[in-house]
């Protein structure tokens, strides 16, 4: 469902951050994206959810060449991708419930049609009691789960998570990993960017390793 061929990227006139990156993400797959800090993990994720365009090479998402997409196509493809940002990006003036419901709201759906769905998902990630709380009141782990719930609410075909365990203790990291594995079992492709080796050792999955702008794959 995601295909990169000889993708290269540089910011402005700087050196290439990514070089000749070639890989694919099949349906129903689970993989870690790892590498040292500054290796280009976030850049690669941004390319995958269309927040950056490559300077060279070909990226295709769900069978479509991203270079040929218009703004409305981008919005339509984004709805098939769930993204969890490293810094959560929750809107501070909206409650947990409203933040999680946002992807459905921007699709123009009436609140009555999704209220039960959002509440159920919030129960599932253990935020049932934090529904009406504004993000500044949430703990780091709760924000993380709210961000994950927002990424999942529109039932994406692929979930991209950037350092989802970067701000939590090892116990919570294990619980979050279990959440992602459950999601994978229910049919969603999952890609977790992390430099937490202990986390990767807990679940045997494909590893994409970025180093100095090049990608190696360990199946």
């Amino acid at each position: 469902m995601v295909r990169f061929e000889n993708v290269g990227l540089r910011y402005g006139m700087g050196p290439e951050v990514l070089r000749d990156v070639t890989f694919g993400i099949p349906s129903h797959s689970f993989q870690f994206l790892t590498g040292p800090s500054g290796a280009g993990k976030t850049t690669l994720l941004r390319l995958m959810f269309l927040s950056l365009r490559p300077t060279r090479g070909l990226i295709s998402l769900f069978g479509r060449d991203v270079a040929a997409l218009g703004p409305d196509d981008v919005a339509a493809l984004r709805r098939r991708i769930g993204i969890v940002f490293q810094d959560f990006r929750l809107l501070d003036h909206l409650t947990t419930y409203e933040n999680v419901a946002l992807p459905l709201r921007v699709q123009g759906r009436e609140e009555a049609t999704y209220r039960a769905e959002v509440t159920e998902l919030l129960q599932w990630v253990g935020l049932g009691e934090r529904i009406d709380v504004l993000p500044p009141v949430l703990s780091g782990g709760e924000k993380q789960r709210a961000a994950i719930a927002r990424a999942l609410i529109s039932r994406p075909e692929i979930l991209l998570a950037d350092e989802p365990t970067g701000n939590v203790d090892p116990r919570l990291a294990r619980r979050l990993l279990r959440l992602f594995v459950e999601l994978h079992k229910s049919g969603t492709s999952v890609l977790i960017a992390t430099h937490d080796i202990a986390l990767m050792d807990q679940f045997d999955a494909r590893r994409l390793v970025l180093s100095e702008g090049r990608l190696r794959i360990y199946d």
Partner: protein
Amino acid sequence: MTETYGFGPSDTDDGSERRDEDPAEGSPTAAAARARAPIVPGATVAGHALVAVVAIMTFLAGLTIGSVAAVRGLASEWTSEIARDTTIQIRPAAGLDVAAALAKATEVARQAPGVASARPLGASETAALLEPWLGAGLDLSNLPVPRIVAVTLAPDATATTIAELRAALAREVPAASLDDHRQWSARLTSTARTVVLIGLGVLALVGAATVLSVVFATRAAVAAARTIVEVLHFVGAHDSFIAAEFQRHFLSVGLKGGAIGGGAAMAMFFLLSTLPAWLRGGAPTDGSATLIGSATLDLRGYGGILGVIVLVALVTSVTSRITVYRTLRGINS
């Protein structure tokens, strides 16, 4: 998705393997209790600052537009009143019966076409006119003082009215001369025109300053909400949806600021127009009424201020739309 995968209400609890006993906790209807919050927040520091900027600039533009309208009204009032008033002067001369000439001239004027009224000024009125220069208690019979007939032209009077009256007077009362204030009227008209032109120039400058400051303040407010634009974008909102959300919000900000500033300007003109009457405690009688009493805003002036409010609100909302699209292009670059 019916189970809670190992997450309790708090992630600081120690039962890491514990599952929620009661998944129904945190009632689903609780969310409905709070009205759906707008995606673009109403009360932000940048939002308040923008309302203030819009209000102040609308107030200033409203004052300018009101002043220009008032000056214009005043100027046209002056010129039309002065143009409608003329005077016939009877200069005393040896062997002239001034009283008879005065009566004759009044008679001629009354019969002339296009004249609404003609009234000879009595001895006491003439004395009152001269009082500032010659002092009170004047006996006019001892002085060769010219006598005056005040003539008011009918509203339908044309340029030929004055000429015909002048010809008739020359025939019937050679001692009389007609003064039509043309010189004064021309001078006043050109002065008024200059004042109005200067006012329009100031209005153009204030208008440009208003539009520019509203544009920049709106851009700053949208920039402060950049995270919202990004998040909406990343959760799959169409650009038009994001732009519409911001445009709606900023239209209401612009209308709010505009209503405060424009309303204050209107209130000020209303107070100015009523205040002199209170101070005088009655109907305007003296010369100040011509100046201050007439400096009230007509409907066109109030309409102009309303127009400024609408314009400012539109500028605010269109600027927010353009800025959002520009921000989105920046995110996608």
